[in-house]
Each structure stands twice: as structure tokens, then as C-alpha cells.
């Protein structure tokens, strides 16, 4: 067995410091295994949120060596263990304790987005008929596990703290999923422009880079939404063309 040093942020409500833990590790371990090992041996009071250990629940989001990642999906052989490895809570949300943050703001944001509004059923039994080719696009966004790593890395939220104006990449792809759904009849374009402030996104693609589900958040979600907003509000020629069609 080899040993490595992990610097874990310890403290409450933003006040705290990195504490060094040197521990043994085995081949195949992930960062969450190490955190559990430390918690079970020398730091019984360390707070860490986790659930599935399979990259599907989105609970164990943290910043490992400064990068937003899931602890359960970060294998130790992906890290340089000759140097101390830092493990911190997400910076974008209010800190609770140690590695745990309060992500409830996200759930409040989701409530504000116009819900799925399906057209009338296609069949008398109240069901619809859709082609797989038409639901491929929204289904990509359904892979989201709501780990909120994209929200964490988005500089509009992380650095500029515009939480009360901008909904962030997670909810832009949620809106894209609804807007692109062939059954949906809702129109969220005005809200995207004025309330969700999609214009704050400057396409740096950080959200795409950290997504553990490898959703192409920017290229397939946010940019197509920006283009739909252009259709509606910034394209006079297109508007004229629509009038004569």
C-alpha cells in the first residue's frame, strides 16, 4: 500500500481551513473512498454528502485540486499523488459544513420555469405519438443528474454572484429540454431573455467541461436557445420573412 496526503476543507459556514490527512490507498480507489476512509478513522465528525457511489445521484460534488468533480467518479490514478490533493466544497453555494453546501437555491430556480405543457393527446386513450428522432435532442438533457457542478463552475454565478438574475447552465438545459420537446406547446423565449437572462452566458463552455454525464450543455443546449431568442427578438429580416409565409 502507498500513502498520499489529502488536504480537506474543514469548517462551518465558510469559516475554516485545509486540514492535512495522510492515508494509505489502494489501486482502484476513488476520492470518495479516501474521504470515507479518513472519516471512518481520524475525522468522524467530517460532513460529506454522498449516496450512490456510481455517478448517478449527483450528491458528492466537490472541487478536487480546484476542479469541480464528483468525488465518486474521480479515481486516484487520475491525480498526481506525489503532491497533496485538495478537496473543497463547491464555491457557488452557501457553505454548511466541511464538504457540504446548501444547493436548495437550485430547486427554487426550477420552480420558476414554466412546466411541461403538452399538446392535446394524439389518440383517444390520452396518449401521444412521437418519433425517436425528434426526442433525441431533449433526451440528451434528461441525462442530467443535477450534481450542479455546471452551476458551480459557471463564472456568472461563481464569481459575479448573479444568482438572483441568472438561472445557470443546469436550468438553461432544463429549459432547452422543454423547448425542444415535440409535445410541448409552451413558449419560454421571453422569459429566457428577460427573466432567466440567457444573455449573461458568454459561452466559455466551462459547464460542458465539468459535466460528468458529458452533456454538450453549451453546443446542444444553450447556443440553440440563444439562437431561438435571436429568432424572436433580434432578427428583423427573419421576422419579416415569417410575416409573408
Amino acid at each position, binding site marked *: 500500500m502507498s500513502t498520499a496526503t489529502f488536504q480537506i476543507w474543514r469548517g462551518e459556514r465558510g469559516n475554516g481551513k485545509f486540514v492535512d490527512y495522510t492515508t494509505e490507498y489502494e489501486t482502484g480507489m476513488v476520492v470518495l473512498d479516501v474521504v470515507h476512509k479518513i472519516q471512518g478513522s481520524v475525522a468522524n465528525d467530517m460532513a460529506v454528502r454522498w449516496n450512490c457511489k456510481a455517478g448517478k445521484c449527483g450528491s458528492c460534488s466537490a472541487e478536487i485540486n480546484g476542479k469541480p468533480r464528483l468525488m465518486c467518479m474521480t479515481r486516484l490514478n487520475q491525480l498526481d499523488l506525489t503532491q497533496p490533493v*485538495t478537496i473543497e466544497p463547491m*464555491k457557488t453555494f452557501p457553505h454548511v459544513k466541511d464538504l457540504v453546501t446548501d444547493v436548495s*437555491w437550485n430547486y427554487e430556480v426550477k420552480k*420558476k420555469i414554466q412546466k411541461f405543457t403538452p399538446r392535446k393527446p394524439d389518440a383517444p386513450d390520452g396518449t401521444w405519438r412521437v418519433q425517436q428522432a*425528434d426526442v433525441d435532442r431533449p433526451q440528451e438533457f434528461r441525462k442530467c443528474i443535477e450534481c450542479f457542478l455546471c452551476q458551480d463552475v459557471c463564472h*456568472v454565478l461563481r464569481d459575479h454572484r448573479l*444568482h438572483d438574475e441568472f438561472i445557470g447552465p443546469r436550468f438553461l438545459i432544463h429549459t432547452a429540454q422543454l423547448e425542444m420537446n415535440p409535445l410541448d406547446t409552451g413558449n419560454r423565449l421571453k422569459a429566457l431573455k428577460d427573466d432567466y*437572462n440567457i444573455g*449573461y452566458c458568454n459561452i466559455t463552455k466551462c459547464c460542458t467541461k465539468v459535466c460528468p454525464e458529458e452533456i454538450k450543455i453549451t453546443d446542444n443546449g444553450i447556443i440553440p436557445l440563444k439562437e431561438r431568442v435571436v*429568432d424572436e427578438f433580434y432578427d428583423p429580416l427573419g421576422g419579416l420573412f415569417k410575416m409573408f409565409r
Partner: protein
Amino acid sequence: MSSIDVPLKGGSFGTAKFGQTQRKDKWWIEPLLVFLGYALFIVYANYAIINYNCGGRPCYEVPGTGYLSPMFSPLLTRGAPTWWPSYAPFFGTMLILWAPLGFRFTCYYYRGAYYKAWWADPISCAVGEPRKSYWGERKWPLLIQNAHRYFLYFAIIFIFILTYDAWNGLWFDGPAGPRTQFGLGVGSLVLILNPILLGLYTFGCHSFRHLIGGRKDILSTSPVRKSCYDCVSGLNRKHMLWAWISMFYVGFVDLYIRLCAMGVWTDWRIL
């Protein structure tokens, strides 16, 4: 969104200072390379535009051939119009370059890249920024980014113009007069590749992807539109690659023609 009341202003950890991060990888390499790449092209493009005269002959044409530098195409004028004030410098490329430059300036890939490398907003993911204020693309002057599709329309016209230039590059001076002999030089191949690379970049554009099919929720009922959308999506996945290759290739074509015009390089004839 203003009704959501959560204590997030300032954040639990405060705001990171410029360059502050726990990242241990060499995060600064990518923005540095992007900065240098754009700077190199801008410096060369300015040099090429200003120095269009090579010893009394234009640098953008090779004598005896139909070659024309893409930076000067279409060649609308060879000199300043009569009404142009003599004290002001005149560059014919001013009349045309706004279109391809506007297309690249408003391109979704370039925007993300130069916001990072040239404006440090952010300089890299999860790295502290230099400024506290932030408008994004919600206000002027960056509202102009929404005009990307209009620049796209011009960029598509340029693909046809440059294809015509590539055709002209296959004609050389012959016994019957200028541009009467069909042939093939290395410069012809250089010119043929140019609209191909620009096409791979232009037709992979996010706005084009939207206009060709992305704006529709249902594509299955229009198989041709669906096929076009899938093709454009395929190109779009490599948009960054084609953006860089096509940009530097335009510079290379100009350099090739310039050096041939100056007699530094010889344009080898294949046919």
C-alpha cells in the same frame, strides 16, 4: 427570479482574486495559446493589408497567373476613389474584410475563446477574474453578437467568391492572351483548398445549424432537412478545429501569393 431569497451575495468563501485558484494543472496554457494565435493572425493581417504594394506591383496577385489573395477578394478596387481625401490612407480590403472578420468576431466558438484569452472573463474555468462588474451579452456593445446569422449570410457569399477565385487560379497567361491557358500550379491547389476549409468552418456554424433545422422541434417529417441538420451537426462538433485551420490557412494563402509575387518563392506548374 428576484423573489428567490437566498443569502448568496458575496458567497460563503468570498470572491476569488484574479488568477486565484486551487487548480494544479497548467490552466494558463490554453488561454495563452489562444491569445498568441489570434495576435499572430491580427498582426499578419494588418501587415498584409497595409503592405499591398511589392515594388510597384500588387502583392495580392502573381503575374502570369489568375491567383488572387483571399484577403483582397473580391478585388473591388485597386486604388482610392477620386473623392477619397488624399491625406487619409486607403486600403481596398476595408470594403470587404468587415464581413469575414465580423463572422469570426461573432462566432460562438471565437466568442468563448476570446472572452477568456483576451478579456479574462474568466481567464479559465474556476480561476478568479480581474473585474467585479459583468454585463455578459445582454447589453450594447455585445448585443451585436446576436447579428451572427447576418454575418453568416455574407460568409456564405464569400465561399462562392473564393470558389470562383480557385477556378480563376486554374487559368494562366498563354499565347492567346492573359488567362487563356488552362493549367495547374501549386498555387492552384493552394487556392482550391481555401474555400473547402472555409466551407467546413462556415457550414458547421451554430447559427447555420439552427437555421437548417435546429429551430424545429420536429425533424422526422422532413428527411432532407433532418439529413442536412445531421451533416451540419457533424461539422459543428469540430467547429473549433475548422475555425483555427481555416483562419491560418487564409493567412498562408496570402503569404504564398505574396512570396510568389515578390519572387521569393517559385510557383511550380504541375500541368
